[in-house]
């Protein structure tokens, strides 16, 4: 729920897909809306598949992105290839749009480092998923500093959850970004829950966006379940940062419809009624209702879209399952640029361990 503050809060669509005011000019492009809708559907199907793969033991712990699709798809649509994404672990939507492959995301959560060695050159400079909370915000500032030092008109987007805004790393990142006017956009996915801790006991400030004010730059809130609103505000934030007008903190108000990860059981700490209510506001249905109302989408296209997306997901699962396991020696190969001669003995001991376990590393 939005808090009453003086900061801007943007929403174009009501939960049932009704337009609440004037449509932004860019939203006249119905092909764009269709693409955004398709990408959200694809993300959700992939996400459901990943959860199913975890439940059947084919991947390890996974952090579902259910309910966060609009935020990631908006960011992914608007970033330029030369921009850099510094994500957290609930960013499947934006990673897929940047060029990270579905099978890479499955490989990562499936216990294989190759999942962070993105094949597509378009994402060569994008950071891998960051697990330690909020630390990525500082890496993003470092990337943005490099852009600024070299005079490049590129932007860094970094994401985090509401819990991350409590960490010193996040606040130190805001501080340096404001001080140096770095070309970085901080997107806070305020999905109301940091595992079991609700937003109201995470921070005493009425909004998370206002933390930007203390760092000397612009912050605002947006309805993270409203694709039109998120797209609009991300677009403005990126342009602002790209043109040297400094960082932006965009707090997207959403709801974590799934568990924190597949290792979590959210029914232990939140009421079914709350989740039921949140489902009424979710982003995909909202945009679909709007598009149907505008006459740019018909229910009978839904089935074909599902079939198309399911096929893409299934192909990725097939690729993932065909990937095999890395060579056991690979655990030594990337610790240093070259394995130091001073550690040669350790390498030999590890190779002996491999030889003792005739099959090499555990292939399951």
């Amino acid at each position, binding site marked *: 729920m939005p808090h009453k503050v003086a900061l801007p809060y943007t929403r174009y669509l009501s939960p049932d897909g009704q337009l609440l005011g004037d449509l932004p000019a860019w939203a006249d492009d119905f092909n764009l809306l269709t693409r955004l809708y398709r990408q959200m559907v694809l993300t959700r199907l992939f996400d459901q598949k990943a959860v199913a793969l975890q439940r059947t033991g084919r991947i390890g712990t996974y952090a579902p992105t259910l309910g966060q699709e609009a935020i990631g798809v908006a960011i992914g649509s608007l970033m330029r290839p030369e921009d850099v994404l*510094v994500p957290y672990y609930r960013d499947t939507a934006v990673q897929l749009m940047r060029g990270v492959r579905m099978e890479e995301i499955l490989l990562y959560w499936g216990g294989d*480092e*190759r999942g*962070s*060695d*993105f094949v597509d050159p378009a994402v*060569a*400079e994008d*950071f*891998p998923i*960051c697990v*330690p909370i909020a*630390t990525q*915000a*500082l*890496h*993003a*500032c*470092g*990337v*943005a*500093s*490099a*852009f600024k*030092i070299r005079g490049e008109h590129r932007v*860094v987007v970094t994401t985090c959850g509401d819990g991350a805004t409590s960490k*010193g*790393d996040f606040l*130190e*990142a805001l*501080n*340096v970004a404001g*001080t140096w006017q770095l070309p970085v956009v901080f997107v806070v996915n305020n999905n109301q829950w940091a595992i079991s801790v609700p937003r109201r006991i995470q921070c005493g400030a009425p909004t998370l966006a206002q933390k930007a004010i203390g760092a000397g730059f612009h912050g605002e809130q947006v309805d993270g379940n409203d694709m039109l609103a998120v797209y609009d505000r991300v677009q403005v934030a990126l342009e602002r940062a790209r043109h040297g007008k400094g960082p932006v903190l965009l707090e997207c108000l959403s709801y974590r419809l799934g568990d924190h990860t597949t290792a979590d059981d959210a029914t232990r700490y939140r009421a079914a009624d709350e989740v039921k209510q949140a489902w009424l506001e979710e982003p995909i249905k909202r945009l679909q209702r709007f598009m149907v109302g505008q006459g740019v989408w018909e229910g009978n296209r839904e089935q074909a879209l599902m079939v198309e997306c399911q096929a893409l997901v299934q192909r990725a699962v097939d690729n993932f399952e065909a990937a095999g396991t890395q060579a056991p020696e*690979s655990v030594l190969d*990337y*610790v*240093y*640029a070259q394995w*130091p*001669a*001073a*550690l040669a*003995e350790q390498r030999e001991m590890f190779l002996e361990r491999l030889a003792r376990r005739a099959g090499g590393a555990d292939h399951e």
Partner: protein
Amino acid sequence: MSNGTFSLLEAVNLALHRAMAEDENVIVLGEDVGVNGGVFRATLGLRDSFGFKRVIDSPLAETMLGGLVIGMAAQGLKPVVEIQFMGFIYATMEHLVSHASRMRNRTRGRITCPMVLRTPMGAGIRAPEHHSESTEALFAHIPGLRVLVPSSPARAYGLLLAAIDDLDPVLFLEPTRLYRMNPQPLVDDGKRLPLDSCFTLREGSDITLISWGASIVETLQAANALAEQGVSAEVIDVACIKPLDLDTLEASVRKTGRCVIVHEAPRTCGVGAEIAASLYERALLELQAPILRVTAPDIPPPLYRLESLYIPGVEDILHACDSTLNFA
């Protein structure tokens, strides 16, 4: 830059000037490193020579510095960050342990973190609390990181240049007690010293003395005193704490059969323990006496009135040598 006589501090400054002149990707940043030239003046003159975009006064936030340089390094810059004292480096540790040292591994080489964290280490300069730390062992435990401790102007110069060249993150620890002590001739020729190698400072045949950092001074003095007694001591400056050049240490101990390790850091799980364990594994039957360690006790560095008791003295080293040499 001219040739002449330089202190360790001036040697660091000389190496930074050269590295920045050689490679425009080298960026120096930290608290007070720009206009002020660093609290010890290690970065003096860099701002004037290379400008504010490459010599950056940062906000006072060590965690930020630890994280920021990862992003810079990922973009192909070579950040050399100064942490004002080792006692303030702990705020960067999450970034060192969880990101800088493993980004290469995490991404299978796609993203790397060539960067140097410089920080003054050690006691003996009558400084306030938290300005006298020797916690190199905490960092030696991190795979993917390199940890260097120069103990002379020449090694500070050659090792810092090599550290900046290196493709992986390096922690470069500068013994404050040596910063202005005993300037020595140094040629500013850009010559790098090898990483992962110990330096044998004095050859000997009766006992091996292993040390690093500021304790090298007392260790060499002990070796001189032993020579007067007719005992030939070999002195090795480890210099590269991680990875550790065990081969050189082993060869020396095989030759002498006796070994004393001297370090300023507390005893338990100090780097001396790692060295002793490895030497026992490799050369147990060549040893004629137990390996002894001369270290600080497991206490925080005392405030300055008592700090000299914390630092291993020549007499402490000689006492350990006596025990080793007279072991039945």
